[in-house]
């Protein structure tokens, strides 16, 4: 029987990262959507980089920042946190890699919301947080939902950066893509097929959700 642990490791990493990425992406998109000029460009670039850089580069940066010999890594160690090769590292890696998809999706969608609606809400004394949640989100949802679904799918497929900072520990940090890599390299084609099937189905479900979110609002 194939060990089911990669499924749980993947689901844990992906569900946690999706929650983190949803709120961070949405809030940052809201905070920066009206910015213009060089500052906006710079923030956009930094937040999009993990999407276009090879995951090994993202992994390398994470390793340099969080590794045991880095300044930040040592700080964490002093408070008893060791990021490298822990399950938390899988969450960190997939969050960083999938963040741009949510951020870009949410930002594009929020920008489409007519400004007048926001202004009207403001003159009626609505708080900014409530405006985002009750006025902008319902209108922007198809785009935000699509960004979220893409971020979910990307997180599920993350391999390179995760391998570099979380290592391959079966039952702890071995995600489905890693299980596929090692099953293939070890000649265990049966397990590889099973995992390939599972991840394909999960990704299709994510894309179907995206379609559904888009259609509901038409």
């Amino acid at each position, binding site marked *: 029987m194939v060990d089911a642990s990669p499924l749980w490791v993947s689901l844990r990493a992906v569900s946690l990262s999706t929650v983190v990425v949803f709120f961070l992406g949405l809030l940052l998109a809201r905070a920066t959507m009206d910015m213009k000029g060089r500052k906006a460009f710079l923030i956009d670039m930094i937040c999009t980089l993990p999407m276009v850089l090879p995951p090994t580069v993202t992994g390398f940066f994470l390793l340099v920042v969080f590794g045991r010999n880095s300044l930040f890594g040592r700080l964490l160690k002093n408070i008893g946190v060791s990021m490298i090769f822990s399950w938390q590292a899988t969450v960190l890696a997939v969050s960083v890699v999938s963040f741009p998809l949510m951020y870009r999706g949410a930002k594009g969608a929020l920008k489409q919301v007519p400004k007048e609606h926001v202004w009207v809400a403001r003159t009626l004394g609505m708080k900014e947080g409530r405006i985002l949640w009750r006025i902008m989100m319902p209108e922007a949802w198809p785009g935000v939902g699509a960004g979220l679904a893409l971020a979910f799918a990307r997180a599920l497929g993350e391999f390179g950066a995760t391998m570099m900072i979380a*290592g391959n520990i079966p039952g702890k940090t071995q995600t489905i893509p890693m299980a596929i890599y090692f099953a293939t390299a*070890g000649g265990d084609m049966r397990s590889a097929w099973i995992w390939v099937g599972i991840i394909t189905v999960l990704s299709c479900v994510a894309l179907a959700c995206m379609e559904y979110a888009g259609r509901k609002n038409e």
Partner: protein
Amino acid sequence: MKRLYAIGCCFLLTGSLFAQPTAEMRPVEILISAAASLTNCMDELKSTYMEGHPEVKITANYGSSGSLQQQIEQGAPADIFFSAGIKQMQALQSKGLMLDDTVKNILENKVVLIVPKGGEMLSSLDDLKKASVEKIAVGEPKSVPVGQYTEETFKNLGLTEALQNKLVYAKDVREVLSWVETGNVQAGLVYETDAKISDGVVVCAETPEGSHKKVIYPVGVVKESKAVDEAKAFEEYLFSDEAKAIFKKYGFSVI
């Protein structure tokens, strides 16, 4: 004017892509799939060989022997397979993918325990049980030969259970080395030759004699090769005195 210049550059670049050396100049390409532990050694061997043989161009593809074996099974256009384990070579032979008379054992290597430079020294494999050793990097046993030897050693020394929760499995031997070098694990098991090329690690102990099967590297020509003669010639070169000296320089024992 600027645009004209840009267009001109594009044309030049495209042109250079398609430009090829004339027929008699074009060297025959041989692709070698070699175990990750052979990387540095093979780089030197192939450039030395190409100096004397301008008619061939050797390209090397490095990875864990298990991945390389799979790639060849799936039709990767490799001409020579240089494995760090007998198991992977035999798997290809049993599927009839190797030219059997070309498959020979060529090198022997050792498995050693390493720690990061400046890290805590360990005097034997038993010390891995210490609480200060939180994580140990090893090769993934199913696909990375050094991982198989490591697993076998731990089993024979009765360490398997005690160390189980400390192991991090790397996708090839070089990854084990880099995890130790960067101090992200407290110890790792690699080949002696890998330990030798790194300034960032210290060898603490060798695995005891008889604790694992001998580390033998076989080499052979792939049946599907489109340049069998050139591949055979290069294989022959690997057994020459010049090649032997290079192997030894990198810490291998020649059989």
